[in-house]
């Protein structure tokens, strides 16, 4: 099986502060990979570095067989990398439909059927289409951010703490939608989270991150029992 993403020795800094200190992992085709870690361990930074927001100081990132370590954000997006960022980053003054149309911004021609198709998976968004994105609740914005990302038909989605500040019913909905989608598309995903239940129900494999390094795999039994060994000695 081919790997969708291969990360080797990735280092990245925020200003002078090193945050990622040598990240190594792979994501297989169709795999949903969970990455578990406390605040400040580099989860968000890892996703930002993979998307190209932060330059890699060292190491390499290969996506679908090509080296993307030095590519700008939009070029990675066009290769099929998608990010649903923390805080969701909805375009607040654009309507929900316009936010979804932005998901098609890289396509040669804008095909509104893609949006209509996608809305069958996100029925909650249908009656909100003409509202400004900023007027939506946190959970609705999270669904919108996910739907917007999916409009671009990504091969690998980077999902950053999707359960933060969101009511449980929408968390359930997100899990169901993501599990349903993988049956129809060739879709891989990296989800970083602190919510054990969420990560357990979505992921095929869970890695833990500590102080900017992947420290090992967390077994399903440990995960469900809450024995994840994340406490820093």
């Amino acid at each position, binding site marked *: 099986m081919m790997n969708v993403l291969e990360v080797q020795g990735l280092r990245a800094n925020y200003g002078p502060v090193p945050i990622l200190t040598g990240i190594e992992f792979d994501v297989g085709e169709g795999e949903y990979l969970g990455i578990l870690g406390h605040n400040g361990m580099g989860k968000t930074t890892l996703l930002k570095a993979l*998307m190209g*927001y932060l330059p890699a100081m060292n190491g390499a990132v290969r996506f679908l067989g090509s080296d993307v370590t030095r590519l*700008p*954000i*939009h070029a990675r*997006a*066009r290769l099929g990398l*998608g*990010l649903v*960022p923390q805080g969701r*980053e909805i*375009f*607040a*003054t*654009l309507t929900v439909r*316009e936010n979804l*149309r*932005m*998901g098609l*911004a*890289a396509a040669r021609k*804008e095909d509104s059927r893609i949006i209509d198709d996608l809305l069958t998976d996100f029925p909650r968004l249908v009656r909100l289409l003409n509202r*400004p994105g900023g007027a939506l609740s946190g959970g609705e914005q999270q669904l919108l951010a996910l739907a*917007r*990302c999916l409009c*671009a038909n990504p091969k690998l989605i980077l999902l950053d703490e999707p359960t933060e500040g969101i009511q449980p019913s929408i968390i359930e909905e997100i899990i169901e939608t993501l599990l349903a989608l993988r049956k129809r598309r060739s879709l891989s995903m990296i989800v970083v989270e602190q919510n054990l239940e969420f990560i357990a129900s979505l992921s095929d494999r869970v890695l833990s991150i500590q102080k900017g390094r992947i420290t090992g795999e967390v077994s399903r039994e440990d995960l469900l029992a809450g024995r994840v060994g994340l406490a820093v000695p």
Partner: protein
Amino acid sequence: MDLAIILALDVLNGTASLFLLCVGLAIIFGMMKIINLAHGEFVMLGAYATVIATNAGVDIWVSMIIVAPLFVGLVGLLIERCLIRFLYGRLVDSMLATWGLSLLLIGLVTTIYGNTMNGVPTPLGGFQVGEYRSSWYTLFLAGMAVSVMALVYALLRLTRFGLIARAVMHNPNMAATLGVNPDRVYMITFGIGAGLTGLAGGLLAPLSGITPVMGAAFIAKCFITVVGGGATIISGTLTASGLFGLINQLGAYLTTPVYGEVILFLSAIFLIRILPQGISGRFFKGMS
């Protein structure tokens, strides 16, 4: 009665010219947060393009409406690639660099065409209102202002490029995450702003004395209008040009043109003091 009509036409003229002069700046400053101190020189280049094309035998309407915006738009693209693109997010540096650019453009035009007054005749002639005279060109300017307004609105609201541009101005990184190259959007937006400013220069060429330093006369008025109008391009620029056009013309009528300008600047300072976000920041939140 005749006097009222003439005054109304004057106000219309002031508003239309101000709107035409400002809309390009509103795009460059309002959307891209670049303080372009060479804005007046873009107007000057538009006026020179019109004069030179007209003297070379091109129809004056073609020179004003096509040659001037096209030429200044292309100059704008070139300047964006060589200078402005290094300055996004660096407000003070952008002021310094565009000020230098303004001096360079003035020097360049002076060297080539000399420090002399040029002009083109005002087309269309005039009409009589009682004992006063006014010119048809005033009404034409108002018509052009309305057309430009409609065009900018359609571009921002109804086209795919407009949607992408609004998204990039709101959050460039997120737009890039969706596959948009913000660099390219900035370049095109700057070119459009420069082109519209060139159009203003072309349209005002028949009404102004055209010299290399003519831009200085416009720059302050343009900036206070754009800042007074606030972040939204059309509604903000339109209301601010209407308000300041009215104040300027009435002030000039009641006192002298010089005091008219003074009254305009004083009322602008007052307006920005009470509405720091500009008119549209207070009344038209979230529109364009």
